[in-house]
């Protein structure tokens, strides 16, 4: 019953998209027509306890379904606070954070787990379980939210194939390169088909070539309609991707450009 959604071959639609760089203006147009904000920050201020100044101050932004957004800015500018607020690891001091129509700050804590199932998350340090293989790491994310092992057995190889790790399912994290480990992490974040993929400096530990490959993968995932919010200070990547850029400095949004560069 719970696993019914998995019977759809959701990955096939993903594969029909080209892996070449985005050149289809129609896709952007369709997004504009299908106006549906999945993330809304309304005058969000976050001051951590005992902090001298707020990490985020009066931030207002709207992110629509299917967008690919970079949050950029110097270290300590408050970029990671965005991710924490969206994951509800933190609640804003004032203002509202609305994700997929739900006010995250006023959410009951017992509703948080169900809410997080609609999000996927990737980090700079991969956060894989070292004593589990690539496939087991991905399956873990399914099993702990109650999916049966049968479902995991079917879906995990597919998603690992999708991220380009076909044939390496049984390798342990220490047997994989950094880029491959990040692919496992992306597979784990995406296996549950989240509405939004949050990426906190996903290329921070990777060399430039591997970073580009990871970005290609994120781009492909974005083309399935998954909204991607990526926090980074990698100017190369931002300049190459030419996606929406929101720049944060000292907790304030100082720039919001539809097809921006690092600047």
């Amino acid at each position, binding site marked *: 019953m719970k696993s019914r959604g998995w019977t759809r071959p959701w990955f096939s639609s993903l594969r029909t998209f080209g892996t070449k760089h985005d050149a289809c203006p129609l896709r952007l147009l369709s997004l504009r027509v299908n106006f549906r904000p999945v993330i809304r920050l309304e005058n969000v201020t976050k001051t951590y306890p005992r902090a001298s100044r707020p990490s985020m101050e009066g931030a207002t932004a709207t992110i629509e379904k299917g967008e690919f957004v970079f949050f950029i800015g110097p270290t300590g500018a408050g970029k990671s606070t965005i991710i924490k607020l969206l*994951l*509800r*690891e933190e609640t804003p001091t004032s203002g509202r954070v609305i994700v997929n129509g739900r006010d995250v700050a006023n959410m009951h*804590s*017992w509703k*948080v*787990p*169900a*809410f*997080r*199932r609609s*999000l996927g*998350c990737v980090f700079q340090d991969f*956060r894989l*379980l070292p004593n589990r293989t690539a496939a087991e790491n991905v399956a*873990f*994310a399914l*099993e*702990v*939210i*109650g999916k*049966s*092992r049968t479902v995991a057995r079917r879906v995990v190889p597919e998603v690992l194939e999708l991220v380009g790790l076909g044939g390496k399912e049984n390798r342990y994290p220490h047997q994989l390169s950094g880029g491959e480990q990040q692919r496992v992490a992306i597979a*784990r974040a995406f296996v*549950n088909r989240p509405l939004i993929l949050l990426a906190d400096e996903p290329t921070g530990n990777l060399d430039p070539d591997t970073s580009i490959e990871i970005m290609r993968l994120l781009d492909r995932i974005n083309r399935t309609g998954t909204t991607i919010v990526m926090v980074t200070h990698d100017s190369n990547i931002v300049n190459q991707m030419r996606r929406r850029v929101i720049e944060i400095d000292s907790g304030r949004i100082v720039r919001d450009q539809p097809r921006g560069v690092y600047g």
Partner: protein
Amino acid sequence: MRAKYVLSEVFLGLWRNVTMTIAMIITMAVSLSMLGASLLLYWKVQDMQDYFYTRVEMSIFLKSDVTPDQKAQLADALNHDSRIQSAPYESQDVAYKRFREQFKDAKDLVDSVKPESLPASFRVKLKDPNQYAAVQNDYKSKAGVDSIVNQQKTLDKIFSILGGIQNLALVVAIVQGLAALLLVANTIQVAAYSRRREVGIMKLVGASNWFIQLPFVLEAVFAGLIGAVIAFVVLIVTKAFLLDGPLSGIFTSNFIPPIGWQDILLTLPLLLAVAAVISAATGWVTLRFRLRT
């Protein structure tokens, strides 16, 4: 699969932290066997109190120069007192016979006492043993009455000693229980720390709180239940090798009723329940503070 996952996590957790687990089980077992012992003692003391207090007698000793008239008056008053069940008269001769019987091992004592030196008495049995003070008051100033002695006072002393032993066992149980509680809390924190990666990922991907917490709580409950079973075995061993062995003399005197197997068996469900509830509650409270989102 969920049950399998949770169970394998429980045993893995207990095994990974095996010294702490053993410490937890031992403390739990000591605490629970003390609790069981004090429980058994409590039941026994209740039984004994019911038994002895209903049989308590007071003796109204008569003066040596009591006149037959005074004696008859007293007997009449006692027989018409609604609070008194029976009041047979015990003459000096009867008292002497009883005395000789009771102290037959101490020949010198028996020889030194003559029938005249023992007072005659009324052996009064009350309907309600709690009224002894009132009855005593009414009769102590009557003509011919020398003194009134009540067995209840002796019983009170004995039971206060037994109550003291029971309280001591209870205090030990509580102190040990507190230690067990802290060990449970500590073990769970260590377990949560050693699995912090898994817990972090589980929270991230949206595993429900009970799913994250259940293995830890079950770990504590499991250790607690083993402790309860060990405590139960300790009680059985105590009964079989101590109470039925070297200490069996206490019971043959017929003063303390022996502790039956059914009493011991009755402690098992109680110990299991106490162990499970306490470890689960401690575990849950610890996790509230440890694994908050």
